[in-house]
């Protein structure tokens, strides 16, 4: 029996607040197991800790694991730097990707691909992969010459994140509110590309505030998060219930328990 791709046991964390100069508790005991071939959707109201969970897992400098265990591919990740986690196969599509002036997208992508594989990738090899990905995702080549995320529209930023996912081929791809700020057409397109990526050798953790994502993706697992904990988990049936009764109603029932 191989170990799960991601295994969290009683995970607690704090975030450093520069305003108050204090560590604020965020995660208060998260249990979660994700195996290859699965698509997990994590839902919850603002402030429930779902984005924080993604950043804790990716190693955000302001987030700290205080208790519990987090294993990726059987390895504890607590002491790993973000870049080590990424090279091991973790990926986070940011809700707000950072802009870096003067750094062309193409240069960045090549550096990231080489970092992920821990080897130099000949230009021709890289270009072949890149062209294929661009074509698949319907992204224009002109995009490569622009500064990373600088002056990008909301949709362009999200598509850029998905492009990176396709090139870096993570085994665990976490998507932090990738649906936010997208109109219906863009949403459809982006989640079509997300679905294209999913296969039996990887897993997705899709974080969202709205249930509309469920129209575009068929999760194997659905979780509801509240106050730093996963308070409800289920399969596609929970997703269906949310679809019928509404996300707020389901959370309301659970939260009152």
């Amino acid at each position, binding site marked *: 029996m191989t170990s799960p791709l991601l295994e969290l046991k009683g995970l607690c964390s704090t975030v450093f607040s520069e305003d108050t100069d204090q560590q604020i508790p965020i995660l208060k005991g998260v249990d979660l197991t994700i195996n290859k071939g699965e698509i997990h959707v994590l839902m919850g109201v603002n402030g429930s800790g779902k984005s924080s969970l993604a950043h804790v897992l*990716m*190693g*955000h*400098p*302001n987030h700290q694991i205080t208790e519990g265990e987090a294993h990726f591919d059987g390895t504890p990740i607590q002491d790993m*730097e*973000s*870049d080590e*986690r*990424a*090279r091991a196969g973790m*990926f*986070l599509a*940011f809700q707000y*990707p*950072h802009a*870096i*002036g*003067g*750094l062309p997208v193409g*240069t*960045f992508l090549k*550096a*990231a691909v080489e*970092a*992920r594989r821990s080897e130099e990738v000949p230009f021709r090899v890289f270009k072949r992969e890149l062209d294929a990905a661009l074509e698949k995702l319907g992204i224009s080549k002109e995009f490569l010459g622009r*500064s*990373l995320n600088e002056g990008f529209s909301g949709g362009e930023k999200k598509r850029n994140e998905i492009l*990176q996912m396709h090139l*870096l081929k993570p085994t665990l791809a976490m998507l932090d509110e990738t649906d936010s700020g997208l109109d219906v057409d863009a949403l459809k397109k982006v989640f079509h590309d997300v679905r294209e990526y999913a296969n039996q050798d990887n897993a997705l953790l899709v974080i969202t505030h709205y249930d509309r994502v469920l129209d575009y993706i068929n999760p194997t697992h659905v979780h509801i998060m509240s106050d730093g904990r996963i308070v409800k988990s289920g399969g596609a049936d929970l997703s269906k219930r949310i679809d019928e009764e509404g996300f707020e109603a389901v959370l309301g029932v659970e939260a009152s328990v």
Partner: protein
Amino acid sequence: MSSEKTEVDFDVADINKDYERLYGFHTNTDYLKDSKKGVSPDIIREISKIKNEPEWMLEFRLNSLDIFNSMPDPTWMDGSVFDDINYEDLYYYASAGDKKYNDWDDVPEDIKDTFERLGVPEAERKFLAGVSAQFESEVVYHHIQEELEKKGVIFLDFDTGIQKHGDLIRKYIAKLVPQGDNKFAALNSACWSGGSFVYIPPGVKVEIPLQAYFRINAESIGQFERTIIIADKGASVHYIEGCTAPTYSKTAFHTGVIELFAEEDAYLRYTTIQNWSTNVLNLVTQRAIAKKNATVEWMDGNLGAKTTMKYPAVYLAEPGARGRVVSIGYANKGQRQDAGAKMIHAAPHTTSSITAKSISHNGGRSSYRGLIKVNKGASHVKTDVDCDALLLDDFSESDTYPTIDVRERKDVSVMHEATVGKVSDETIYYLKSRGIKEEDALLMVVNGFIQEFTKELPMEYAVELNRLIALEMEGSIG
């Protein structure tokens, strides 16, 4: 500052004998006690005689020396900067033939190490370290020279320029940087050696960048380099001085004077990347004039030196003239980069832009010091200044001293933007989340920051500059 002491009785020494030892290094403190501080008229006469210069140049030098001796240090900058200059210690003259070169063994290990890691070829290393006079690039040089000569282009070291085109130089020298412009310009005018003389005839477009090291039997960057570049009507030229690899200088003082003349419809670009060893005080006066519809661009990179003071200027003299400065400065530990630009709008319908990027690191200090002047009558003027500072840690410094002096109201647009920023942890985290190591992530951000400068460079320079920045930044992650 240290140097060997040589005891010489000035009065009895035969000035024609053992010249280099006695007068090349002026270390005789006894003599200096009795004499005026600095180089003497006798020495100037001797230099001029050895170089077989015309009378007017001797007069020019002597006159400049008088001016130098009568001038105080600049007062607008923290005076302690100039405390390091010991005029008695300066190496006033070296002839091309019998210059006393540095000993390779004396070149500091860190410089040798940098050459090694930059992959600088052996011959170039010695040249850059001041151990030999030139790159071994004669074949390339001859080919290029032939091509240029066919077009009537003059591209010579300044000494040869004086010999062959004295009358032409006489018309232009000190027209933009008068001898009394500043103390260091005066010293340069008295003691200049090295530098280039370039003349591009009307309508001639020089396709390849002219690089100083194509010249033969001359120093690439002398301690008192003097350069004049003239782009005649409709001519076009890109001149590149220096190179990115560190230039080792035993003498800790470099003061150059560069004058650029762009006649009607001409295009003239001057690119320099200076990376002096960190003992050097680098004071260069760079000034240009742009005539009707002419364009002058200064691309100015400053990495090394202990202190750099450099403010390339463009005098926009006639309608349609354009001036542009793009500069970067990297101030590492113990370094001060005081750089900027000056744009003088003396005619209507003139435009200028200044982009100044500075990086401060390990306690280094970068300053932007700039002047925008719009004269009365210079209407329909547009000028943009953009200076951005990047601090790589909490204890490095950056400041800006912009001066904007506008005397004309009719349709004058002056934009000035300044930013100071640090590389945010969030940005580094974003790059790291893609598997990129922290030091590489920081380097990507810094290279992005200076991209407006690097994109203007020929490819090999851009690559070399990026590698050099990587070396500078090594160990910047705790």
